[in-house]
């Protein structure tokens, strides 16, 4: 840690970890409901569990992104954060809004649109919160030394994420129009600007961890985020196939969403190539493992599994089935959960001054959670394919098919248990690091200087 105010990142990461744990609890509630064990139904019906599960995912990822930004932006701008107190206010208010929203879901109070469930009055509070965040890192960046590409891409990603939240607040009477703009938020976030954030964080990590020249890495960052927008913007069309929009979206969405894996493939190839080139000399091996894992799993989950059902002729049968849940799980894990975990694995030793970078628990956490998530995706894939064939192609009754695929959810829950063990180990490692300390500020204990010695950066 070079600047005292970077410390706030630790608390954003800690909040993210708590919300992740809660997200998993609600995931289990849904998993058990699917095998008929729905004893919690009177208090937590499926739609509540589902809204909490997905909303907590978004909030903990945003917490992770914000924490990453509070760590990266001062470092890249060469100065302390402009308003450290504002960052604290922002964290606390974000958590308060989150808790109120989750509470509302348990009392059947919501906006009730998939992924945008939070009651509308809370939307405005989120907007204010995000404005505080953007102002804080924006001014820090502005007043700093010449802004780096990595910092700019990260900032742009966060800024556009905030702007694209607004179309989701339009109230519409026509279900088709409603859905049309809802995807501006959901799709353009996860298959657009969030990839900018992910790319920015990944670049920062690769620069720090591999020691490859900044100019080389940042050039590739431009190409990859360029590919993301080239395919991702018109790729929004794959959500417009069957919701009452003109037929040309089948063509536009089909072609451009088929190109979307390219950006992820580029990211994976680039990350692996850079780590080879740099020779992996940084002692924080586990952070590099998470970074490379993120690049690879995001290609498999978001790129490949997305491609598997994005063509209109296939999507006609898979649209609205568990195939989407299959893709969703590994895509979010690979692209966004793993980049946040990679950032945490990198930043924690620097924030706390404890060099726990290659412990057995940290390695087990990586492998167990990834194998668990892969198995979960496999179970959902088998359930989804069976559902598509029986319900959509043969025409059996919805519930008859749900009974047929129940056993796959037993497998899914076992895989989820394995995944949870992995996350548990990650949380254990997080806890072992202890709190951020002043000693981490001392230059000799700051491991980053080690990396800097090994590979001087070209600024």
């Amino acid at each position: 840690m070079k600047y005292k105010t970077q410390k706030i990142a630790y608390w954003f990461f800690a909040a993210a970890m708590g919300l992740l744990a809660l997200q998993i609890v609600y995931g289990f509630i849904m998993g058990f409901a699917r095998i008929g064990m729905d004893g919690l139904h009177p208090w937590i019906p499926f739609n509540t569990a589902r809204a909490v599960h997905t909303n907590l995912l978004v909030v903990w990822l945003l917490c992770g992104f914000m924490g990453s930004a509070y760590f990266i932006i001062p470092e890249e701008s060469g100065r302390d954060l402009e308003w450290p107190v504002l960052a604290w206010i922002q964290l606390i208010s974000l958590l308060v809004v989150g808790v109120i929203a989750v509470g509302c879901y348990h009392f059947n109070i919501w906006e009730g649109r998939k992924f945008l469930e939070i009651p509308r009055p809370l939307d405005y509070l989120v907007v204010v919160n995000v404005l505080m965040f953007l102002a804080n890192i924006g001014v820090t960046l502005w007043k700093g030394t010449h802004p780096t590409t990595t910092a700019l891409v990260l900032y742009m990603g966060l800024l556009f994420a905030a702007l694209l939240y607004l179309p989701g607040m339009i109230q519409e009477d026509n279900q088709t129009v409603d859905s049309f703009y809802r995807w501006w938020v959901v799709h353009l976030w996860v298959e657009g600007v969030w990839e900018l954030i992910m790319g920015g964080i990944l670049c920062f990590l690769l620069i720090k961890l591999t020691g490859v020249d900044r100019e080389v890495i940042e050039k590739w960052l431009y190409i990859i985020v360029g590919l993301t927008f080239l395919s991702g913007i018109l790729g929004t069309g794959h959500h417009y196939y069957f919701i009452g929009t003109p037929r040309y979206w089948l063509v536009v969405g089909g072609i451009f969403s088929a190109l979307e894996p390219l950006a992820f493939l580029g990211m994976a190839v680039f990350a692996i190539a850079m780590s080879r080139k740099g020779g992996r000399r940084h002692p924080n091996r586990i952070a590099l493992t998470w970074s490379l894992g993120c690049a690879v799993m995001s290609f498999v989950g978001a790129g490949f599994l997305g491609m598997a059902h994005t063509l209109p002729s296939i999507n006609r049968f898979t649209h609205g089935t568990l195939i989407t849940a299959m893709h969703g799980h590994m895509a979010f894990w690979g692209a966004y959960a793993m980049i946040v975990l990679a950032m945490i694995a990198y930043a924690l030793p620097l924030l706390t001054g404890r060099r726990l970078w290659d412990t057995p628990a940290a390695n087990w956490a990586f492998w167990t959670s990834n194998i668990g998530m892969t198995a979960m995706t496999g179970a959902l894939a088998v359930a989804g394919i069976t559902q598509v064939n029986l319900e959509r192609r043969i025409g059996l009754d919805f519930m008859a098919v749900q009974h047929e695929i129940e056993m796959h959810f037993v497998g899914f829950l076992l895989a989820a248990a394995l995944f949870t063990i992995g996350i548990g180990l990650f949380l254990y490692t997080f806890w072992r690091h202890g709190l951020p300390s002043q000693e981490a500020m001392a230059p000799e204990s700051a491991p980053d200087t080690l990396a800097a010695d090994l590979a001087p950066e070209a600024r």
Partner: protein
Amino acid sequence: MLSKSQARTFFLGGTGVFAAIFLALTVDSMKRIPALTHADQLTESVVRGKRLWEANNCMGCHTLFGEGAYYAPELTQVVERRGKPWIRLFLKDPEKMFPGERRMVNYRFTDAQTEDVIAFLDWCGHVNLQGFPPKPPLRDLLRPAAVTASGTAASQPELFRTICIACHSVGGVGGVVGPALDEVYRRKTRDEMLVWIADPQKLKPGTPMPVIEMTDAQRAEIVDYLLDLAGRTPPPANGRPTPKTPAEVYE
């Protein structure tokens, strides 16, 4: 190889061009959506139904236009599939219609609210969804021709086709909550069937089968249809019995 500034130009230029195309297509879509969705039929009742749909987060379990949570059935064209009487009955007490099955919250809609929800779903059912949901392409391949004759919806009485079929099946089409009715004529006489439908509890106390309000004539029509299956349904192929349903196992 590209220089960094060329890479930046590629990023900014590409993003600009494709964002502009996207915005142009959005403007065009907004012009065409009213016709595709019959926006002129967006009555106040439909809009109230939509608000109810959102206020109770129905998408948190169901899907509509294929969007939602995959825990409960797709509701696009549900009005066409089940009919309004069935939906009215179902919404009064969802768990009663599917006893022992996956549960749905009873939202205690007033009659007016129920009509609004139905109006909304009915409106959604008429939106041009470019061929979604697709007709199951393998259904006809898998059904023997003889069964098709009696199983087709066309030959079924209106109430049977919209209400009974939600739980019972004929010719392999229908729900799995109650037993298949292909061979019910072997198990029950005409009079037994009439009493059973009118008041299931009288014949078997504790049965989950609900009382469906209907006229005597409608009841007779359904019983006639079920008895008529005797002449049309061939014995099960290869002597295999019809598959056991959860309800049968329970018995």
